[in-house]
Each structure stands twice: as structure tokens, then as C-alpha cells.
């Protein structure tokens, strides 16, 4: 009996200490910057190949609202966001939302594994220095852009996105004439 209690106490102590040391970063939540209602500057076009070797360009999605996510498999906040982007893509696909992922990983191998594991339902391509720079530089992850149906930048989120905020924004852009 005493042995069981001691083991339980030890396990609880270690788990408690571990949890304390893994507190979320207070500044994690991203915030929209720049224009948020659509009608901003034109979003830079890009031409890349997706993970299946198919051509992937922003221009192809003109007329749809695009959520463009710069992410990487090793980025903790990105990993937390992606299941929610998958859900958004499912929920709003028919209304005109297109999510696109640009991975900043150094090679495709981990991205392919991640794509399958997280059942990603939108195109993903490996990013390049040029594409990152055309969007003002991606020097920290994640970075998410919303692009309106006219291909103009509507919002930028540095850091992890509050999903309620971004969903509200997506709905507004989908409904905009």
C-alpha cells in the first residue's frame, strides 16, 4: 500500500514539475495587423509545386478567399493550428475558402509524413526565400495571411492565430461582395 502511494506521489510530482516547465508562452496569440476588411495591396503571386508535384499558384485561386499559412513541421504553434485549418477548409470550402500551406521546412520528407498524419485537406508546397520575401519576410513562424476574393491582402497574423478571430474574419471576407 505504502509502496503504491509513494509511486503515485513520485509520478504526480514529476508530471507536475514537467507541466510547470511547459507553460504556454504568454505572447503566443497572434493579432491581425494591417488592413483587415479586404481591399489591401495585391497579394504577391507565387508559382510552386505542391507535395504531389502539381503546379500551385495563388493566381489559380482568384475569386476565392485564401488563407495562406507559412508553417513548418518543427514549429509547435503551427502543429496546434493545422487541425483547425483543416476543419476550416472543410467547413467553408463550398462557400469559397481555400487554405494553402507554405512549409518552411528544409526538405519535403518530414512535410509529406506530417501531411498524411494530420490528414491535411489543402495544398502544401515547400517555400522558397523569394516567396517568403515577397510577403515581407517570414522570420518566425507561424505567419498567416488572409487574401480576399480579389486577390488583395486582408489580414496578417504573426504567431499563432486565435481561431475564433480568424473564423470571424474568414466569414466576413466570404460574405463581402
Amino acid at each position, binding site marked *: 500500500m505504502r509502496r503504491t502511494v509513494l509511486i503515485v506521489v513520485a509520478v504526480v510530482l514529476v508530471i507536475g*514539475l514537467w507541466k510547470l516547465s511547459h507553460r504556454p508562452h504568454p505572447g503566443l496569440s497572434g493579432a491581425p495587423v494591417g488592413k483587415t476588411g479586404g481591399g489591401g495591396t495585391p497579394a504577391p503571386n507565387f508559382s510552386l509545386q505542391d507535395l504531389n508535384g502539381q503546379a500551385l499558384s495563388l493566381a489559380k485561386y482568384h475569386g476565392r478567399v485564401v488563407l495562406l499559412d507559412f508553417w513548418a513541421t518543427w514549429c509547435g504553434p503551427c502543429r496546434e493550428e493545422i487541425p483547425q485549418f483543416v476543419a476550416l477548409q472543410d467547413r467553408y470550402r463550398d462557400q469559397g475558402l481555400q487554405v494553402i500551406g507554405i512549409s518552411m521546412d528544409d526538405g519535403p520528407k518530414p512535410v509529406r509524413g506530417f501531411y498524411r498524419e494530420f490528414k491535411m485537406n489543402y495544398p502544401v508546397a515547400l517555400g522558397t526565400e523569394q516567396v*517568403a520575401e515577397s510577403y515581407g519576410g517570414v522570420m*518566425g513562424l507561424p505567419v498567416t495571411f488572409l487574401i480576399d476574393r480579389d486577390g488583395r491582402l486582408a489580414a496578417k497574423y504573426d504567431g499563432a492565430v486565435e481561431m475564433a478571430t480568424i473564423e470571424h474574419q474568414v466569414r466576413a471576407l466570404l460574405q463581402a461582395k
Partner: protein
Amino acid sequence: MKVIVKIAIVLLLGVGALLAQSELEPGSTHLINPEDLLMLLQVPKGDKPLILNVGPHLLYMQAHIPDAEYIGAGSASQGLESLRRRVKTLSHNTFIVLYCGCCPWSHCPNVRPAYNELHKLGFTNVKVLYIADNFGTDWVDKGYPIVKGQ
């Protein structure tokens, strides 16, 4: 008796891991703030640290600290291997600054493994650049000097 020994081992391992990690908690003397590193770099004749970037290559290519050498991601075995190769011939008291800046501090997967590796190799004068949010926000946006490309 055996159980108590096992519990003691579990506790020691847990506490040891936490202590190693707490060395890189904000406020630790093993960290250096961006403004302090900048001052060091700007002193004309001061001893400059060896600055090693242990983050993702695409981020390094877009912008990095002048004279910082690209090593490879500290979260990858190849990155740690490159780090071991780079420091192999250095004296153990070489002043080294490691940095990444890919993600918010508590989420960075690269700096801790790289720091632990140097610690394990016996390096005694290693600091990690404390980047609270990311390299863009905490260095580039402040107007601190950068270099692009290789």
C-alpha cells in the same frame, strides 16, 4: 527498499531534466538579450563571440546576424553533428552564442538541444540569444544589423 531506490532514481532524473531546462528559462545567466549582444558586436575592439545559428536554413537565408555561421537545426541529428564538427577544434572556454528565433522562446525546438550538446562537450562559455517571439520581431524589426543569404 528497491521501490524507494527506483522512486529516487525517477525523481532525480526528472529534477535533473528540469534543472537542465531551467538553465534556459528567461532571466537565466546562460541567456543573452538581443540588445546586449548588439552592444558586444558594436564594441570596436572587444572580444566578439562566435555566433552560431542553429535554426532553419530558409529563415537564416532571409536574414541573420552579421558573421553568424549557419550550423543546421539543433532539433535534427544532422544539425547536432555539424555543431560537433564546428566546435571540435575550439578551446572549451570559447565564447559562443547560439541562436535560432524560429518560434516563440518556449516553443523553439532548436536552441535547447544545441545548448545541451555544447554543455555535454564541456564548453563553459556558451550563451543562448533570448528571442522572446521570433527573429523578425526581436531583431530585424528593431533595426538591428542583418545580412541576407549564405
